[in-house]
């Protein structure tokens, strides 16, 4: 128990360090950016003197670098991500949070579809004796993995929206209406899910093949259990362990990919906000989105670690002090010797 606390303490500490590292890199990218720092910070737009003074005060721009760095860190940790340059200088954090729901509406279904679909397809491909089925699934996975995601979205629009007319092409709801229309959701979610689905299918396939090849599967078979019992009760739980880690990472990648997908479908989420900010050089918003994304990814990583520790009994016990055996690795069998 104590060992586990130490482990999580370390995990939190290294996450914190990672977070600070990201902020540091961002800060110095800002420093490196050529030109007037205030202009860099707000972007390529005319400034009112009042706004200039506000920023100078907020970021202590008249102070030396290290002082500004500490100030910046402090601002970030207190949730002050600066102000968006715009009509009413909205706080960046508010702006991002107002968009987050729309992005999650895409990301969460995409995450679930790709994870569950990947587990099922990968298992089928790993187990089937039919070569064409395995080949089809594996080949399809490589292909989908090689498709530029945003182009796949464009193809979907051209086929299903423009040609067949089944779905709308852009946006999240009919013009002027609040909320999210279900028919607007379909294509972007599919687009977001595909490359992750392809990746997870591949991982699951190799993990399942590995699991089915393990010795304990032979023990299960030796009990006369049906082959489906062996697959679902013995091979699957072990094959799922790597999927926990992969799924943890995938959420970060789905969110990062939302930049592209939201652009394709004109979906007003965080990704589109990010792109707009880049196009208008609204740098505080750019940095704000990256910081929020980093926080999400780090939190998900911690969560993944916790879940993994709960799922794998070997790790659950790895923290108990009496544990002696390494979690993996075999003992030397010495089986090549004729006699002992």
């Amino acid at each position, binding site marked *: 128990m104590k060992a586990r606390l130490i482990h999580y303490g370390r995990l939190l500490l290294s996450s914190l360090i990672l977070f600070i590292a990201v902020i540091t890199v961002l800060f110095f990218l800002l420093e490196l950016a050529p030109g007037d720092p205030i202009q860099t910070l707000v972007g390529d737009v005319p400034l009112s003197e009042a706004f200039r003074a506000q920023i100078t005060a907020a970021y202590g721009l008249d102070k030396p670098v290290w002082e500004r760095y500490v100030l910046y860190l402090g601002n970030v940790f207190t949730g002050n991500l600066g102000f968006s340059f715009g009509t009413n200088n909205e706080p960046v954090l508010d702006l991002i949070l107002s968009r987050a729901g729309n992005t999650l509406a895409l990301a969460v279904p995409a995450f679930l579809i790709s994870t569950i679909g990947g587990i099922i397809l990968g298992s089928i491909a790993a187990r089937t004796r039919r070569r064409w089925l395995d080949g089809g699934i594996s080949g399809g996975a490589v292909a989908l993995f090689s498709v530029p995601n945003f182009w796949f979205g464009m193809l979907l629009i051209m086929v299903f929206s423009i040609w067949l007319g089944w779905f709308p092409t852009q946006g999240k709801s009919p013009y002027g209406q609040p909320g999210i229309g279900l028919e607007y959701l379909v294509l972007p979610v599919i687009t977001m899910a595909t490359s992750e689905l392809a990746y997870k299918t591949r991982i699951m396939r190799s993990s399942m093949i590995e699991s089915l090849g393990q010795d304990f599967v032979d023990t299960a078979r030796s009990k006369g259990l049906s082959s489906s019992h062996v697959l679902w009760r013995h091979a699957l739980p072990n094959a799922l362990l790597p999927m926990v880690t992969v799924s943890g990472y995938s959420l970060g990648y789905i969110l990062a990919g939302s930049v592209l997908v939201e652009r394709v479908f004109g979906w007003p989420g965080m990704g589109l906000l990010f792109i707009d900010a880049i196009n208008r050089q609204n740098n505080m918003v750019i940095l704000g989105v990256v910081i929020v994304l980093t926080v999400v990814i780090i939190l998900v990583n911690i969560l993944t670690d916790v879940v993994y520790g709960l799922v794998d009994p070997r790790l659950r016990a790895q923290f108990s002090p009496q544990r002696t055996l390494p979690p*993996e690795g075999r003992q030397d069998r010495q089986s090549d010797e004729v006699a002992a």
Partner: protein
Amino acid sequence: MTQQETHMVPPPETGPTANAVTEAANRPGLAGAAGTTAPPDGAGTPPPAQPDTPAGAAGRRRPPGTERSPWRVFLRKPSTMVFLPLLGLFVLIAALGPLLVGDPSATGNAELLAPSAAHPLGTDHLGRDYLARVVNGGQISLLVGFTVAVLCMTIGLVVGGLAGYHGGWMDTLMVKLAEFFQVLPGIVLALVAAALLGANVFIIVAILSITMWPAVARIVRAEAMRISQLGYVESARAAGFRSGRIIWSDVLPNALPPVLVATSMTVGRAILIESGLAYLGIGDPSHPSWGALLNSAQAYMRDGWWLAVAPGLCIFLVVLAVNMLGDALNDAYNPTVGRVK
């Protein structure tokens, strides 16, 4: 951090096959599993009752030397025979094509012409020949992809080799750095850097290389760690060989197949990310790459479908080719049929 080490798999950016390779590297060697490893020539005295000489094995098995070399297995694979020429074709077109197709920015044709004999890929919204634009766009995409891959391979070999071979603080530093780049997806970092520092090709190549090297480094590190514990490296070290030399002559040859696999995956990922950046408008506007062509095609999906189809198909085929070749190489070096279950 042992727990992290045991279950952390590289994130999607490293590519699935690279992942499989790392897994494979941790498994006991195939020959060892079959119990047929012959003692290396002149490596001490053979153990007393070494029972499983080839003659002692049950039945007829091909002696190790007569199995086809992995490299030849790779070249004979059907997917290699399809995708290697395909990739060669794209490289050739990128290298020589621009000389043949004429000026990509010459206007003057009718706008949005569908593909025809005169304009095999039609014309764009400004009446420019689309074939010329696509051929020229490929140059950027391929250049970025391959440059990033070569840079990643170089960084990965040096950093991974040193970290794995020396261990200690070098290793810790590498692991931490790799972790850092694992946290932020490359495309995000690239977008920020490009937005703040400018969007030229060099910056994009630099950023992509900086974010993508850990995939290769991880593999080299594992191999270097393994090798540095083997007896013959001990003796090489004892004989006074420098670490750089040992990494070069022992670590490298062993790590090369998985490194090549990871590198080919890097080519694919880099091309995909570059196209994504260009699609978002990050890139050199005077030399539009395939992704940039897709950016302008977005507005004409209804009236000029070919504008969106051709560049995307090119990206897809090139990335598919490198991924398939990576897979084939991986299969050739790690045959799964060695011991069936």
